[in-house]
């Protein structure tokens, strides 16, 4: 615990809540996961998730939404953002 607090103070590791929908719910095993990682962009989050859940690479596409909007990989993240995994959509 002391170590973790120390890391947070150094602002190297961030903690993001990530919601999952459709097939990504099956892949990550739930509706939400918490990611603690170094890095603060959508692209970094994507690489982190793909390394933790390799099955994500089997999807036809994988977008990440930040605050209800499709996000580019370069976009920065803050811990308060609502982040979601968007596998290929199939509404209609």
């Amino acid at each position, binding site marked *: 615990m002391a170590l973790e607090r120390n890391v947070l103070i150094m602002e190297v590791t961030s903690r993001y809540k990530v919601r999952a929908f*459709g097939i990504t719910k099956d892949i990550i095993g739930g509706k939400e996961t918490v990611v603690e990682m170094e890095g603060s962009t959508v692209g970094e989050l994507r690489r982190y998730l793909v390394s933790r859940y390799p099955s994500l690479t089997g999807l036809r596409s994988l977008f990440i939404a930040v605050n209800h*909007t499709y996000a580019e990989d370069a976009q920065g993240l803050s811990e308060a953002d609502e982040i979601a995994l968007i596998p290929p959509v199939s*509404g209609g």
Partner: protein
Amino acid sequence: MIKITEKAIDVQKVIDTACSLGAGAVNVFIGTVRNTAHAKNVLWLEYEAYESMAVAEIKKIVDEASHRWPLLGSGVSHRIGTLKPGEVSVVVAVSTPHRRDSFEACQFIIDNLKEKAPIWKKEVFEDGEEWISAQPVRAVEAQS
């Protein structure tokens, strides 16, 4: 009116929302659950939505449509939850002064909704289930 709902969609209500006294034309698209897919019998579908974002994305699409065509009214309702064959999954209705615009605007909205709105369906067969279009190997078969 843009709505994501677990209840059966009242098609007439969506149409009423889209109607306008200045309009001469209303076009309505209704998506229904087919009883077969990939030559297998569909028992039911499970629809799931990221609701707040789905409403926001559909709103963007309708706004874009109203820049391109003279929309006088519009309504979009998408159902989620368990749907059996024959049930209505989505209704898009638009009204415009003249008919060509109503066809074009309605098709624009449903085409973009299907491409962008964060909504997912899982087909449930007798021998299994499958998230539609999720995996590359299925992508070709599942086009509609």
